[in-house]
C-alpha cells in the first residue's frame, strides 16, 4: 500500500523543465529517500507535493485522494507536512510558542469562543499546551522551551522544525536535507531520531539528503533524480550498484 503516489509529475519554469515525468510511490509506514546531484529537482518535488508550487502536468495522489494543486494549508491539514532546507521557523517566537502555534489544528473553538473564553476554549487550550510540552519532551527540547527559536544552535533548530511538523499529527513527513551542516556524530543521532519518530508517531517519511550514510542507513526505498528525471529507483543495495547512478555521481572513466 502506498501513502503517496506521484504520477507523471512535471514542473516547468518557462522553458526549463525542473521536474519531468516523474513517477514514484512512497510506501506506507516506510522511510524513503530522494537523492540526486544539486539542481536535480529534489526540493521542487517537495514544493509540488506540499502545494507551494503549482503542478504543470501530472497528478499527486495522497491516501488514494488527488491533492494536485490544492492550497498548501489544505494539504498540510490532510496529513502531509515538511521541513525546509533553509530552516523556516517562527524566528522571534520561543521554542514553545513555535510548537504551540503548530498544534492549532488540534483545537476547533471559533473566534467568538476565544473572545469570551468559553469552557470549551479553555479546555482545548490546556490540551494544546500539554501536547506542545509532550512534543518538546520527546524531541529533547523541553529544557530550552523558553529560548527564542533564532537563538538555538543550528542542529536544535532543525530538531525544532521537526517537532513543529509533528504537531500536526502528520501521516507523511517530508524532511528536506535534515542533516545539512551536521557532523557525523550528529548525523548518527539524527538517524536514530528519525527511526524513533517513525515508529512512535506511526508515519511515513520521505528524506532528501546528500549524506549517503544517512540515506543508505535508514531508507528502505530510494529514488535517484538527475536533471529533473528519474534515474533509478530501488533498495539501497540496488542503487549503490546501479551503473547509471555511479555515472551521474562520479562521471564515466574516459
Amino acid at each position: 500500500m502506498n501513502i503517496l503516489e506521484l504520477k507523471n509529475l512535471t514542473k516547468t519554469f518557462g522553458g526549463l523543465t525542473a521536474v519531468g515525468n516523474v513517477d514514484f510511490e512512497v510506501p506506507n509506514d516506510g522511510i524513503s529517500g530522494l537523492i540526486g546531484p544539486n539542481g536535480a529537482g529534489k526540493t521542487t518535488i517537495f514544493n509540488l507535493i506540499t502545494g507551494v508550487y503549482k503542478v504543470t502536468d501530472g497528478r499527486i495522489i495522497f491516501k488514494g485522494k488527488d491533492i494536485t494543486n490544492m492550497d498548501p494549508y489544505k494539504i498540510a491539514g490532510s496529513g502531509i507536512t515538511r521541513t525546509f532546507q533553509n530552516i523556516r521557523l517562527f524566528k522571534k517566537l520561543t521554542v514553545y510558542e513555535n510548537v504551540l502555534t503548530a498544534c492549532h489544528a488540534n483545537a476547533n473553538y471559533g473566534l467568538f469562543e476565544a473572545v469570551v473564553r468559553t469552557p470549551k476554549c479553555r479546555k482545548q487550550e490546556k490540551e494544546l499546551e500539554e501536547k506542545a510540552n509532550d512534543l518538546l519532551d520527546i524531541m529533547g527540547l523541553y529544557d530550552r522551551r523558553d529560548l527564542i527559536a533564532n537563538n538555538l544552535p543550528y542542529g536544535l533548530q532543525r530538531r525544532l522544525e521537526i517537532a513543529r511538523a509533528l504537531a500536526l499529527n502528520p501521516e507523511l513527513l517530508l524532511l528536506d536535507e535534515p542533516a545539512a551542516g551536521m557532523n557525523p556524530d550528529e548525523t548518527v543521532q539524527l538517524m536514530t531520531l528519525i527511526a524513533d519518530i517513525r515508529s512512535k508517531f506511526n508515519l511515513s517519511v520521505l528524506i532528501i539528503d546528500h549524506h549517503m550514510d544517512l540515506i543508505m542507513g535508514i531508507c528502505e526505498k530510494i529514488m535517484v533524480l538527475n536533471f529533473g528525471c528519474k534515474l533509478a529507483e530501488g533498495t539501497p543495495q540496488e542503487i549503490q550498484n546501479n551503473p547509471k547512478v555511479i555515472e551521474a555521481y562520479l562521471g564515466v572513466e574516459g
Partner: protein
Amino acid sequence: MDLNYITGILTLAGINLMAVLGLSLLTGFTGMFSFGHAGFMAIGGYTSAMMTVKFGLPFIPALLIGGLVAALVSSVIGKLTLNLKGDYFCIATLGFGEAIRLILDNVQYFGGARGWPGIPHHTNLLNVVIINIVAIFILANIVRSKHGRNMIAVREEELASQIVGINVFRYKLISLMISAAYAGIAGGLMAHYMTFLQPKMFSLTKSTELTIIVIFGGLGSISGSVLGALVLTSLPEILRAFSNWRLVIYGLAVVIIMITRPSGLMGGYELTPSSMKTLYTRMKNKNKGLPNQMEGGKTI
C-alpha cells in the same frame, strides 16, 4: 489647566486608542501595514451619524452598525487586495483611504466637502473608557487564543504558516475585518464627540498618525498601543506652549524613540500583572548582584 480641557484630551486619546487597537492587531500581530484606516473611520463615522441623525437610533447600536459596515467594506477590499504582498497591500490601502475621502467630498447627502454639522453629542470620557476596556479585553483574548497565535505566525513567516496548516488568507482577512470594525467604532465615537463630520478629518495624515502610534508603542504589544495612543495624542497638546515648534518636537520625539528603541516603546512585551512581577523580581536580583540570566532575552 481646567478639567474640561484635560477631559477633552483624554477623550480624544481614547477615540484614537480605539482605532489604534484595531490597527495594532493588523499591523502589530498580523504584520500588514495599512495607510487607509482613516477610510474605515470615515465609513464608521458617517454610518453611525446617519443612524442617529436620520434614523433616530440610540448611540451604542449606531456605533456597532458603523463598525459592522466598516468591517463589511473591509472584507470586500480584503478579498481584492490581500493576495498582494507586503508593500503592495500597503499602497492599495492608501488608495482606498483617499478614495473614501474623495467620494465623501462629493456626496451632498452628507454635506460634501463643507461638512455635516448637527450630530448629537453622545461621546464622553466615561463611555470612551468603557468601550476601550471592552475592546482591549476582546483583543487580548483573541491574541492569546490559537487564532491570535496563527496571526502572529503569519506575521513571522508566511510560508511556514501555510505548511503547518494555517489558512493565511483567512487570518489576514479576519484581522483586517476586526481592525476595520474597531476603526469604524472609533469613527462613530469621533462623530458624536465633534458633533460635526468633514471628509478632511479622515485624510492620509490621520491614517499615518494611527500607524505611527502603533509602531511607536511597539509592534505586537497591546499595552504598547495603549501607551502610544495616550502619549502621542496628548503630546501635541502638552507642547502647546511651544506654539509653532510643537509639531517639530512631536516629530523629533518619534524619531528619537525609533532610533533608540527600534521595536517601539514596549517592543513585543506586554504590561500584565505577571510580567510586572517578573520585572520586579529581576530588578531585585540585579540589585543583589546576581548574574544576569538569559531567560526571555528577546532579540531585536
